[in-house]
């Protein structure tokens, strides 16, 4: 249980880091919080030739609120920073609500948002939340930068749009829509374990309580965050009644997820969990949306 030898480079500026990735991108692995990378190196499932440690690149560990009420988050911001931030609680309440579900306190003290997003574990919370919130990621290389929508970033199991020489340098979360409700819920065998299934929902209602926007995204029921747009569309223009919410969740669980069974949960059981959790997430998001409207 010891990592294989590697060459260690710890740049202190982003420019240096990008130059290193231009030269060594295919052989190098970026080390952010290391809470997923170092376990797989300990198991020797990963044996990168070069480790580029971003922990000294202080320009990547800041976050701020934008004028319009969105958030701009550097990739090296640690989970515990977001978990305990008043700004995040106020302006990105879905992120705030999700943080305690991510592993354990000791892991959250070290793990970073950029590391989790780039690792692309289908059972991880943050990719699902970023897809639900329609966040965008700024990817930079020595040649320039580009913005990618969270939804387009995730391509397959542990596979993202990130090129070998690129680094996620910023995560942009748009302002919460006004009068919107949100919710995240998951089931894990023990708190802090990877969840068997999870669901995030965002619901926006008009002044009479009819649904104007609905978004439902699932965790760990496919290779990537699974977006149930067709099911969510059933809600648009309707009052979010219990029957409609159940129908929406059922539709999503039957048609828009691809759960793989494992030793803890069969495919059918995961579909059942997706239905139950999808229903709970929409119910809570709709209740919060009604509250935001004063209905």
């Amino acid at each position: 249980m010891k990592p294989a030898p590697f060459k260690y480079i710890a740049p202190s500026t982003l420019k240096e880091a990008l130059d290193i990735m231009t030269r060594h991108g295919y052989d190098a692995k970026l080390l952010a919080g290391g809470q997923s990378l170092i376990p797989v190196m300990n198991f020797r499932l990963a044996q990168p030739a070069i480790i580029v440690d971003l922990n000294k690149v202080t320009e990547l560990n800041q976050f701020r609120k934008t004028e319009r009420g969105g958030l701009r988050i550097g990739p090296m911001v640690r989970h515990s920073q977001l978990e305990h931030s008043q700004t995040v609680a106020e302006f990105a309440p879905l992120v705030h609500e999700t943080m305690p579900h991510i592993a354990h306190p000791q892991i959250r003290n070290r793990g970073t948002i950029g590391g989790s997003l780039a690792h692309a574990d289908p059972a991880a919370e943050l990719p699902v939340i970023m897809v639900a919130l329609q966040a965008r990621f700024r990817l930079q290389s020595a040649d320039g930068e580009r913005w990618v929508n969270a939804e387009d970033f995730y391509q397959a199991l542990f596979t993202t749009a990130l090129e070998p020489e690129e680094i996620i340098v910023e995560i942009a979360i748009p302002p919460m829509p006004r009068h919107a409700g949100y919710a995240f819920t998951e089931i894990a065998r023990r708190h802090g374990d990877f969840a068997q299934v999870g669901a995030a929902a965002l619901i926006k209602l008009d002044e009479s309580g009819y649904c104007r926007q609905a978004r439902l995204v699932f965790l760990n029921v496919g290779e990537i965050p699974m977006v149930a747009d067709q099911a969510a569309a059933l809600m648009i223009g309707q009052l979010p009644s219990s029957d409609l919410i159940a129908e929406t969740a059922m539709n999503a669980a039957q048609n828009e997820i691809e759960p793989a069974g494992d030793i803890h949960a069969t495919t059918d059981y995961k579909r059942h969990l997706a239905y139950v959790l999808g229903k709970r997430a929409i119910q809570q998001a709709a209740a919060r949306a009604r509250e935001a409207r004063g209905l």
Partner: protein
Amino acid sequence: MNKHAIQLTINGTQTKAEVEARLLLSDFLRHDLGLTGTHVGCEHGVCGACTILFDGDPVRSCLMFAVQADGHAIQTVEALGTPENLHPIQAAFHEAHGLQCGFCTPGFLMTLVPFLEQNPNPTEEEIRAAISGNLCRCTGYQHIVDAVKIAATNYTNDTN
């Protein structure tokens, strides 16, 4: 293999060392420095036995490389009390029978020291959330939770 020179503060003492990049912080503490109070359980971040304070925050020392500790301050269980003069949290574990074999104990202690400093009057739910990342395979958790409650009472009385 290239070695990296590092300089760090361990339990208040400035320390210099040369380490191979792949050396885990947990192994550096135990093998290079002889600080064997930090225990190594699973080596993949699940059990919490190797928890130390990194710049004051509890982290897994098996999920960091020693070279990453360059310029930082580390505290291990050796920084707490001595057999004659136990730290209040150690005394509480002793009193409540919060340990049996003791393997997991250093990790629990290093998780709980900053927790009780930041949260001197925790609820049982908060205590259980705080220790959720530490596994104990013999006494079970009830006595550990009891110990934290005793420690919290002692902390509060000390402060008053």
